């Protein structure tokens, strides 16, 4: 789209084994500005990212994947970008799928596009997805995908204070966008297996349990809001 400025945001916490390669592959694929948000890593994540040509934002305190992503969105707005793509630092997301994510934004069909790969993940994770789909009413198959594209209105909303206390980038972010009247679209993309390390969110059973309980509380607390929203929509109709 003419006049659009887009950047790729990569939140990274101790990902020096892969982040350099990920940045290089993105820059080889297209003329994207790549911004790595180093989430208070204790390894060489920042140095590897700089060596590969990325702009690096170094957080003094570990804020988690969503806190790092929001930092990137705030920086992108400051620098005048009007679209951002978020990708994981572990090499799961192929840069070749970026145009597919950007297309619905350019056509004005969506404010946020999720690069979805429902084939990935264990049976347990799929069960959790289905459960939260039912709880939230969100018609999205891959709730946890970090491969996403955001339009300017979505960026402005997600850079705001009300998105700062979200713990994860999935359900909370999606509910905030939906309740603010923004549109979400899902496109199927291929994903590679993780190059190294393990999931930061689903690293242990305890973390999985914490994730499930926190998201369950989030869903229940938003139920009333959703009902109010639906009844309001009904009045408009």
């Amino acid at each position, binding site marked *: 789209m003419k006049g659009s400025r887009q950047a790729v945001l990569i939140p990274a916490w101790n990902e020096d084994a892969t982040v350099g390669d990920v940045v290089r592959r993105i820059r080889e694929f297209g003329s994207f500005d790549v911004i790595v948000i180093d989430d208070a890593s204790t390894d060489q994540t920042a140095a590897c990212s700089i060596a590969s040509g990325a702009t690096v934002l*170094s*957080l*003094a305190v570990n804020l988690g994947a969503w806190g790092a992503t929001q930092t990137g969105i705030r920086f992108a707005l400051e620098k005048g970008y009007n679209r951002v793509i978020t990708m994981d630092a572990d090499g799961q997301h192929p840069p070749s799928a970026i145009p597919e994510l950007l297309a619905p934004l350019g056509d004005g069909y969506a404010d946020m596009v999720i690069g979805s790969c429902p084939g990935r993940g264990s049976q347990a994770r799929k069960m959790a997805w289905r459960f939260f789909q039912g709880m939230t009413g969100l018609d999205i198959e891959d709730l946890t995908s970090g491969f996403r594209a955001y339009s300017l209105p979505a960026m402005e909303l997600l850079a705001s204070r009300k998105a700062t206390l979200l713990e994860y980038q999935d359900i909370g972010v999606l509910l905030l966008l939906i309740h603010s009247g923004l549109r979400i679209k899902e496109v199927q993309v291929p994903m590679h297996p993780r190059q190294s390390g393990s999931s930061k969110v689903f690293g242990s059973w305890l973390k999985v349990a914490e994730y499930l309980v926190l998201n369950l509380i989030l869903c229940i607390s938003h139920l009333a809001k959703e009902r109010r929203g639906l009844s309001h929509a009904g009045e408009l109709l």
Partner: protein
Amino acid sequence: MRSLLSYQWTTAIIGLIIALIIFLLIRRDILHIKRSFWWIGIAILVVIMGFFPVLIDKIGILLGVNYPPVLILTLSIGFILVKILSMDLERSHQERILRRLTQKIAILENLLESAKASEKPNRENHDHKRHL
């Protein structure tokens, strides 16, 4: 054994000690004045209840509590829960501020580094011209 003080004086003295501690903490700049409202309020309540224990009996009867001291315990637990909840609300507020500040520092650090980097060639160019 005969008691030294009546129940009335014991609670009144506890209330006065709490109030005194609060004022001392504020005086030494250890407790923020905004946080003192709650504790001063509690201290005043304890003093009043200490001097006029009959009040709690009357309120207890009004609220249908057969044994009025239970009302004091129930109210105390209720106040403590409200206080803990308000502390968590405050913590959440501070967490939001801390996160946004951390983000802002990272952004400003990058902008500062970029400004320094772009200033360096300009200064070198300027120095070179001066030498010429």
